């Protein structure tokens, strides 16, 4: 079933359960390609859970269950027989804490290519370079590609993880608080990067930082207790929220 519009992601009546716990309640939204969508909301409201729907990382958690329709590029990614490995190549992810592999910088970026069956040396090193350039890390690491990834700073490690995700050429990038473990300067660099990556990728980002959401995103979704309370253009959400809960949260009156 192909979608008829240009929405790269659409969620229809999504309910999600951790065993008995109802973590996402009747979520509906659509996201067009080459945009940045931010998800905000209090801790435990289901932002990460929602993000992990789209690369099926929730599958790894025992006892989870999903209802509803989840389309990526028009394809129902929870249909029987969907190849999750292929899906995850298309939908990349950057985690909250930088998690480079205990390998070299080069091998970290090459890893996704290798596991996807690419063996050509020249192709791999070419792709490693372009990925590192896209992640704005190349200049800093080009002389130490064969040093351990753990010799990098936290901010560099996170950009390495972004480069690693870009290397397999996903069309969608899921970022779960990618800058929350970083200092302000590294954070600013990641933000710049996200805005630039928007030209080629569709980005879904979870953040606790309101300013960050308003700076870098086109749409914003506000979650609360498993519900998508409000979803709309970032400008509208931050200047004229329709729901009182949204207003309270973004203006800091929450709780």
């Amino acid at each position, binding site marked *: 079933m192909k979608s008829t519009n240009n929405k790269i992601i659409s969620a229809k009546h999504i309910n999600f359960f951790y065993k008995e716990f109802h973590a996402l309640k009747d979520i509906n939204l659509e996201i067009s390609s080459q945009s940045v969508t931010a998800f905000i909301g209090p801790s435990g409201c289901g932002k990460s859970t929602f993000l992990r729907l789209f*690369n099926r*990382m929730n599958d*790894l958690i*025992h006892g989870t269950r999903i209802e509803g329709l989840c389309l990526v590029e028009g394809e129902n990614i929870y249909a029987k027989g969907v190849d999750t*490995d*292929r*899906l*995850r*190549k298309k939908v*990349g*992810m950057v*985690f909250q*804490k930088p*998690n*480079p*592999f*205990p*390998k*070299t910088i080069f*091998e970290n970026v090459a*890893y*996704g290519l*290798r*596991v*996807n069956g690419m063996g050509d040396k020249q192709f791999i090193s070419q792709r490693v370079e372009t990925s590192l350039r896209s992640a704005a890390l190349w200049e800093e690491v080009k002389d130490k590609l*064969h*040093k*351990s990834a*753990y010799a990098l700073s936290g901010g560099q490690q996170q950009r390495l*993880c972004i480069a*690693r*995700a870009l290397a*397999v050429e996903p069309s969608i990038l899921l970022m779960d608080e990618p800058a929350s473990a970083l200092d302000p300067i590294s954070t600013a660099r990641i933000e710049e990067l996200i805005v630039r990556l928007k030209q080629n990728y569709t980005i879904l980002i979870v953040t606790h930082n309101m300013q960050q959401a308003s700076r870098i995103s086109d749409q914003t979704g506000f979650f609360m207790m498993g519900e998508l309370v409000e979803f709309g253009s970032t400008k509208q959400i931050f200047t004229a929220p329709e729901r009182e809960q949204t207003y309270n949260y973004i203006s800091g009156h929450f709780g």
Partner: protein
Amino acid sequence: MNRKSKQTIAFGAFRLLSLAVMGILLWILGFIIYNGAGAMSIEFLTTSPKDNMTEGGIFPAIVGTFYLVVCSMAFAFPLGVMSAIYITEYASNATIVRIIRIMTNNLGGVPSIVFGLFGMSLFVNTFGFGDSILAGSLTLGLLILPLVIRTTEEALKAVPDAYRSGSLALGATKLQTVRRIVMPAAMPNIITGLILSIGRISGETAPILFTAAAYFLPQLPHSIFDQVMALPYHLYVLATSGTDIEASEGAAYGTALVLVGIVLLMNAFAGVIRRYFNNKMKTY
């Protein structure tokens, strides 16, 4: 008495006790070296026993122990590591994992002489391997399997989950993740488990008593279906049931020294491998 002096006394006692433990270990080592050094010579290490084992060397026993260790590890190590991988990385059914764990833990508590008896019944008689390296190695392998599984499991659990999710999120399969990320990261600790296992089985006597060990066999084995002499059993024979126990006392201590030496050497060797893996991970 104030808290500070209480603390001083407590730590003083701990220090004294740990020194005592160290002292005992050194004493044992010194005792073996002192008594065994006299027997040590090139000839002792490279020739067969002579004159009712009061003269000559222990070469066949060294070789026999070597074969037993290598063959039993060749059996137990892959099997144990694969089981541990299955338990920690694949098995999603908690009940099955718990049952496997209870079984291996209990297996680890079974006295080694029972393994010897079992090995004799199954490998020597039922399978018809006879008293042989094969039967002895399989028995030793079974004995050591729980330790290999347990140490490998611990090693795998020590690998951060963030590596796994990082790998899976890039479209790697579970098998690729285990092979390329988890295993290399766990390798130093797995090797440590291997060391412990080798140290343990090279000194075991009971499991090979009825399955592999020869009282006296002045030639080297030709295949895994041959019987062998082995250091711990040879030591036992020299110390308790030789024809002239007093005359073979020197050889007995010499054997003990070689046995201890081999274990220490293997530990050192495995330590080098472990450090190599560690460095490889850190610096490349």
